[in-house]
């Protein structure tokens, strides 16, 4: 790190955010001058890292910056070409993962080190299975329960379940428990949130908090900046194999500081709003009505107009990807209508959709998009070949179009015959998008288009999509990254538990509102039950809504409709029938002009997040229940839930 760097001055700062443990001076692990060469490639040059007990250090960088190389060196997966490590004051030489584990250093990878056919219990004690002698399953079970309850009692796992039946979040829990079973004092979380939903991320951070309080040293590798701010005490930023900011307190940084260090230049705003007037969209070009594809997709409807970017928001597992795959006839559909320019079309195989003018960038780049043995040129032309009906491959006729497109997108023209796998993730993604632009579609569907794409390439992908929309394409983007969705889309359809529950302009939403809207219905069952109970006990209309200034976004509603709120809709106070109550937000029943009365009670979770308001609207002459009673019930709801 250069001495003149603005971040250098902040290194002295020791104040860590909120009520966390104070930063302590003793270092658990230091790495100095670490380099790693793969052949001619220098993956890591003179890197340094310091980890202390009771601290979370963010290890940041774009793709290929060397974060993974550094974490793999510390966890013994690979050996450095040069450099010194020291652990607990003594020099550390690791020749294998086993060495690292013995020292108490564990890498929590993305579900890679688990044996899917073994049970949770066997996986937690997998390293023990290799030791000779009899195992006491009873003792192991007791220990496993101890470990898991140490992570918080809500994280109880069925010990006898086979790991392959678990969700990504649960597998991660097994990984963490496995590390704890080895008494790991240092844990490296390598992009742990990549496949987790927002709620699951919150839970993971809870666990990391506990580990931090328990004096573990943690390293957190991630792309997502907002996560870095919410969990790390310090950050070390890498770029092109070199450390560009070392051990800087997170509290003294802004998002822009970090991006600038990761990318090496100011890339400006990642999301720049389109200039095209959103009012001028025409008739819908693509419509899906009541799509059903068991078991994930239950009832999904949406439509998109020419020139519009529509976002499909929701949690991982809500059925968004599955709905797209059902449209693309990669999964069986039970019901639903698909209309292109108002006319129903039948899609019995993907080629039907391609020929109807739809393009589809599937979620899993490696498994669903890239044909690794074909060259970049052939990968570009693949959908084109699926579209045309001739006998010959027809590459020659399209050579000019290919040349124009790669010039437009800034792809290297001289490497068209190379393997697609030799490109970075971001470049691969651009090529896959180009594959579909080449078919000149009217509708382009993209499922998680920036997954595993570094921040610099991300903004250029956004620009490609905005340009496509400006040129009249209807663009549909699925993303679990709500920030991306809000920054990119004009309108957002929220999908939860396989049902499209809301269709809202992006301008009226925030990440928090989107998170609440997207919450799976199963996790809100208790709230729904409360609404039903309230209506049963007092009559009238009970609802659960978000309030933001003058605006309401209703999440659920039961009863006679006295409030004028409808689930999944945005309304400003004046459009509802209870404007006075919404404006007042008082601790009591507020009367409207026509006499109907409404009580609003706010819910918050343990971390203080706004979970919305529970409301009860009664007719003018009804007997009013005690406001305090209802408030207690609402509070109990959130206390018990967490």
């Amino acid at each position, binding site marked *: 790190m250069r001495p003149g760097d603005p971040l250098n001055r902040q290194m002295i700062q020791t104040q860590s955010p909120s009520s966390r443990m104070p930063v302590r001076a003793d270092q658990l692990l230091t790495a100095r001058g670490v380099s790693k060469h*793969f*052949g*001619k490639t220098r993956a890591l040059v003179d890197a340094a890292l310091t980890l202390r007990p009771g601290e979370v250090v963010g290890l940041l960088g774009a793709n290929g910056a060397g974060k993974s190389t550094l974490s793999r060196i510390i966890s013994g997966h690979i050996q450095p070409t040069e450099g010194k490590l020291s652990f607990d004051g003594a020099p550390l030489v690791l020749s294998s993962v086993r060495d690292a584990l013995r020292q108490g250093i564990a890498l929590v990878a993305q579900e890679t080190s688990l044996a899917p056919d073994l049970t949770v219990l066997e996986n937690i004690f997998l390293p023990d299975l290799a030791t000779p002698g009899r195992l006491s399953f009873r003792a192991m079970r007791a220990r496993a329960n101890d470990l898991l309850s140490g992570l918080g009692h809500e994280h109880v796992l069925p010990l006898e379940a086979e790991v392959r039946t678990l969700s990504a979040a649960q597998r991660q829990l097994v990984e963490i428990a496995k590390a704890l079973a080895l008494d790991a004092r240092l844990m490296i979380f390598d992009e742990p949130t990549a496949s987790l939903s927002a709620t699951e991320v919150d839970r993971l951070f809870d666990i990391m908090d506990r580990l931090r309080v328990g004096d573990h040293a943690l390293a957190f590798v991630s792309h997502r900046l907002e996560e870095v701010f919410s969990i790390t005490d310090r950050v070390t930023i890498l770029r092109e194999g070199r450390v560009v900011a070392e051990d800087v307190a997170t509290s003294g940084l802004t998002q822009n500081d970090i991006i600038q260090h990761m990318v090496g230049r100011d890339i400006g705003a990642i999301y720049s709003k389109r200039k095209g007037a959103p009012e001028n969209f025409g008739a819908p070009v693509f419509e899906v009505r009541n799509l059903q594809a068991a078991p994930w997709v239950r009832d999904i409807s949406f439509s998109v107009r020419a020139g519009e970017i529509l976002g499909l928001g929701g949690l991982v597992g809500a059925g968004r990807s599955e709905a797209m795959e059902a449209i*693309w006839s*990669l999964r069986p559909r039970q019901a639903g209508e698909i209309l292109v320019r108002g006319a129903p079309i039948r899609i019995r*195989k*993907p*080629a039907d*959709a*391609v*020929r109807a003018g739809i393009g*589809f960038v*599937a979620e899993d780049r490696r*498994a*669903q*998009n*890239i*044909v*690794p*043995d*074909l060259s970049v040129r*052939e990968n570009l032309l*693949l*959908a084109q*070949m*699926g*579209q*045309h009906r*001739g*006998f*010959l*491959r*027809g590459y020659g006729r399209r050579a000019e179009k290919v040349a124009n497109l790669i010039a437009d997108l800034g792809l290297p023209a001289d490497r068209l*015959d190379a393997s697609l796998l030799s490109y970075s993730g971001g470049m691969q993604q651009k090529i896959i998008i180009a*594959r579909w632009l080449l078919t000149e579609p009217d509708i382009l569907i993209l499922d998680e288009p920036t997954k595993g794409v570094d921040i610099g390439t991300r903004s250029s992908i956004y620009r490609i999509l905005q340009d496509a929309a400006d040129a009249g394409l209807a663009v549909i983007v699925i993303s679990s990254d709500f920030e991306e969705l809000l920054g990119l889309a004009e309108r957002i359809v929220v999908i939860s538990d396989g049902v499209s529950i809301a269709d809202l302009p992006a301008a009226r939403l925030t990440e928090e509102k989107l998170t609440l809207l997207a919450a799976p219905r199963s996790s809100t069952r208790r709230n729904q039950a409360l609404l039903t109970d309230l209506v049963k006990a007092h009559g009238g209309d009970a609802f659960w809504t978000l309030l933001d200034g003058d605006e309401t976004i209703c999440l659920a509603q039961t009863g006679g409709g006295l409030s004028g709120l409808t689930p999944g809709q945005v309304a400003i106070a004046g459009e509802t029938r209870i404007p006075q109550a919404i404006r007042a937000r008082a601790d009591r029943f507020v009367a409207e002009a026509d006499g109907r009365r409404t009580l609003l009670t706010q819910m918050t979770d343990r971390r203080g997040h706004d979970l919305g308001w529970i409301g009860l609207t009664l007719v003018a002459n009804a007997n009013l229940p005690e406001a305090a009673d209802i408030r207690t019930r609402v509070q109990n709801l959130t206390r018990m839930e967490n």
Partner: protein
Amino acid sequence: MAKPAASTPIQTILMRALRSLEVRMLGLALLLAVILSLSSPFFLTERNIFNILDQSVVIGIVAVGMTFVILTGGIDLSVGAVFGLTGIILAQALQVMPIPLAIPLAVLAGAGIGLFSGVLIAVFGLAPFVVTLGVMAIGRSLSFIFSGQRSISGLPPELDSIVYSTFLGIPANVLFLIGLYLLAWGYLTYTKGGRTIYAIGSNMEAARAAGLSTLFYSIMPYVVSGALAAVAVTFSLAQIMSADPLAGNQLELDAIAAVVIGGASLYGGRGSIIGTLLGVLIMVMIRNGLNLMGVSPFWQGTAIGSIIILALLAERLINWRSARN
């Protein structure tokens, strides 16, 4: 294969050429030819060269079908049995109908068997290895039943014109082989179907999502393989003038070996028809050379097995090196 620009120095041209698998295989074949011609004075005679080509016909034809199948990531263990069974069908048909009817019938029978395997594999998702293993057992068993457990001779003498007529001094069967390889090469390189076969073997899901007809082109290679087994047995019958129910025993192994020596990946997506041709020639040359040198036929298996393993090992080492750079 990359076409180097005219201005590039010879060294780079050579390096680039060596990067192509086919060029390396050609090098191996030539090396083998030099060694064999040094070890035996009879090897490099015109007569022996035609001998080698003649011996390449049957395995060469079958290897084309096998290349199609292996490129999709499948395998066809039934070609030897289909070869035997369609040979019996052809011989029996020739007893009751003229040659121009009997041959298409046999080829159709071969294609039908391939269709059966292909549908089981592509539609029902059964493992190619197991399906064709089953078809192999059925085919061999049926060829014993249809033949009455003995060889069938007494074939019409005009049949041998398929093999023994020549054009420009080249025997008809060798001409057919060359034509077949040209056709297969053109198909796999320049048509939508050919590229689809590669894409299926490389990443079936991506090929399907891109709108390619993955179902049709997953079945088609097995049909081609079955039909070509019947074509191959036609040439064989015309030479031997008798059909043996055991004919083509272990032919599938020779065909797979040729395709693998030719650089194809058994996982699919990688390989070429030129490579397969070189693989066939390498195998036949080794057999032929060892025969000329008077080496016991029992040693031939060891020789060919070693070549296969060495070729694969060399490829892997080269790939590791290039991956590291």
